[in-house]
């Protein structure tokens, strides 16, 4: 039984998803080509690539976090709240602990501790959300809407809504490092995370369990999976990723604040769906998410080059792209289904 069913699903999934990747790639090339033709002196320049590489990691990493939770059939709307709360704890620690005017080699251990504090905060934030969803059976969308409010509320409470600035100079110096004067550290971190999470999904047992849970939670439970543990661990990963994004935002702004990047939440959901993550769970790849991130960053930076187009239209264009992709995906999957039915009839 198992041997016949098991390969059938991934095979169909793979074919479907690869087509999706192809479509995303076509769209990426199209957007890139369009911007290059329309703004040849500005868009396809090293300076612009550098600017884009500095921009997308902070929300890209959160988009990966949300994608993971969507693969298990949930969603994590608490990513931005988690990111800011983690950054605020790290910032509070740095401001309080680092002695004024300490030399760099003395500050370094404090920075390591601050990063550890942020990651631990992210882990706990994620674990709490996972607990609400798995043990208390609260729908993920409501549970994480709650955690988003809760974490943002705590962040506002402990900072009175003020930015936590005057961090040690070394933090943003390291955070804004550019390798070979071109590749920002945040971009390198994004790449490492994308590859790591991609491998985790495709190669590890945990990754397979996530897909199975997302495809059919009931079946997964009857197959002997510990659903609660998988859910909690997934949200923990999402929480840690959020805290990494929080640390990046903290380096870029040289401060932490309760409401930095508040509009990123919906943007990340949009990226995940555009990238081919099935909102109902069970399907999706990090490659697709990365392509979606690049498409949106090309659009956004490209739009900033048109002096007469207000950024007001960015939402219109993004929304339009999203709906277009969803409709296309639906049409293609209907056609594929029909073809499969015809073939099985013949």
């Amino acid at each position, binding site marked *: 039984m198992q041997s016949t069913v098991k390969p059938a699903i991934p095979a169909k999934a793979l074919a479907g998803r690869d087509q999706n990747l192809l479509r995303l790639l076509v769209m990426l090339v199209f957007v890139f080509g369009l911007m290059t033709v329309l703004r040849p002196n500005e868009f396809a320049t090293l300076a612009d690539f550098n600017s884009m590489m500095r921009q997308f990691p902070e929300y890209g990493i959160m988009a990966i976090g949300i994608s993971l939770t969507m693969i298990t059939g949930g969603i994590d709307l608490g990513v931005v709240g988690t990111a800011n709360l983690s950054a605020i704890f790290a910032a509070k620690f740095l401001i309080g602990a680092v002695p004024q005017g300490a030399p760099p080699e003395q500050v370094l251990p404090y920075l390591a501790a601050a990063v550890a504090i942020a990651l631990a905060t992210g882990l706990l934030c994620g674990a709490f959300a996972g607990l609400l969803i798995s043990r208390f059976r609260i729908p993920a969308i409501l549970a994480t809407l709650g955690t988003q409010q809760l974490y943002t509320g705590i962040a506002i409470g402990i900072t009175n809504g003020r930015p936590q600035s005057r961090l040690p100079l070394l933090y943003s110096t390291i955070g804004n490092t550019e390798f070979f004067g071109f590749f920002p550290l945040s971009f390198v971190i994004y790449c490492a995370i994308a590859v790591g999470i991609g491998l985790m999904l495709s190669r590890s047992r945990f990754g397979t369990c996530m897909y199975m849970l997302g495809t059919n939670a009931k079946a997964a439970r009857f197959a002997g999976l510990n659903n609660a543990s998988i859910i909690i661990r997934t949200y923990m990963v999402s929480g840690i990723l959020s805290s990494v994004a929080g640390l990046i935002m903290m380096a870029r702004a040289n401060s932490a604040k309760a409401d930095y990047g508040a509009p990123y939440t919906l943007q990340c959901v949009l990226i995940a769906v555009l990238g081919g993550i099935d909102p109902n769970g069970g399907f999706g790849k990090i490659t697709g998410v990365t392509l979606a991130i690049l498409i949106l960053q090309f659009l*956004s930076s490209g739009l900033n080059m048109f002096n007469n187009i207000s950024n007001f239209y960015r939402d219109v264009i993004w929304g339009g792209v999203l709906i277009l992709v969803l409709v296309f995906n639906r049409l293609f999957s209907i056609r594929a289904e029909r073809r499969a039915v015809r073939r099985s009839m013949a």
Partner: protein
Amino acid sequence: MKRSFVSVLAVALVFVLAVPLFGQSYDPMKFKSSKPQAAWKIALVPKDATNAWFVRMESGVKRYAKDTGINVFQKGPPKTDAAMQAQVIEDLIAQGVDAICVVPVDPSALEPVLGKALSKGIVVIDHEGASQQNCLYDIEAFSNEGLGQALMQVLAKSMGEKGTYTTMVGNVTNASHNEWADAGVAYQKAKYPNMTLLAAEPRVEIMDNLDTAYQRAKELFKKYPDLKGIFGTSSLSTPGTARAIEELGLKGKAFVTSVGLPNENKPYLKSGTVQAVMLWDSAEAGYAMLATAVAVLKGEKIANGINLKGKGWESMTFAPESTKVLLGKSWISITKDNVDSFGF
């Protein structure tokens, strides 16, 4: 061995890869552009792209482009968010603009990206960001003292320069509101001897709420029959108090003014209950920011008395003990005659 490696790495990171971030002071005279004026590109970054206040600002930017022929444009983030505003500035730096004028959502969050702009020789001008470190100049529409005096002039004129008045602030904790009120009271004592501040309740608080303003005004006028004027600060003081004045039939006997938005006050200005409210015009502020940037690019010295061309920005003075923050006198009084011309 290992320890020394770490410290060498740290020191190397600081000195070799360092992006200038803080405390760097730049000499504005070094930002004189060697390019011809026709090749200049100047961007103005508002807090967001859709807010009526900044749509109005953009009309000033367009007027500046028309008046001077210089390539200036406004480009804001799609939502009011510090992180998104920083991204727009990143892109502008990559495009190689010559000057960036910015109305920061959160000055501290923009320090790194504006530091990067300055280090690349891009002129940075702030507005409503007096705490910004990484900018050449920050221009403010007015000093708190100047606005307080101007509000008092309006109220005194309405009251015929005589009678009892009191002050109404948004919150007693709001620093600028209280400074306006203090300046107004001091000005009255010096200039209008026939006016008196209501001793029993010299400062009323409305919690920045329209309904509270209405309730408090109604109470005050009933409790103190000789009260003739309310010196408001919050933009909600005037519409709230004006409603109370009309309901109590005190039109022409009691008066109010404050900072105010045109549309909110339109009915009371038209009916004659309110003579004028004060406002500064974001279009003029945008115009003045661009003029500042152009002055720096031309290599002109920015000194006390400089003319930034926008209305009310013709004679700027440095704030006390500052070589960065410039103050104007850019308030306008909104009356029944010009209330329709603002569009917000």
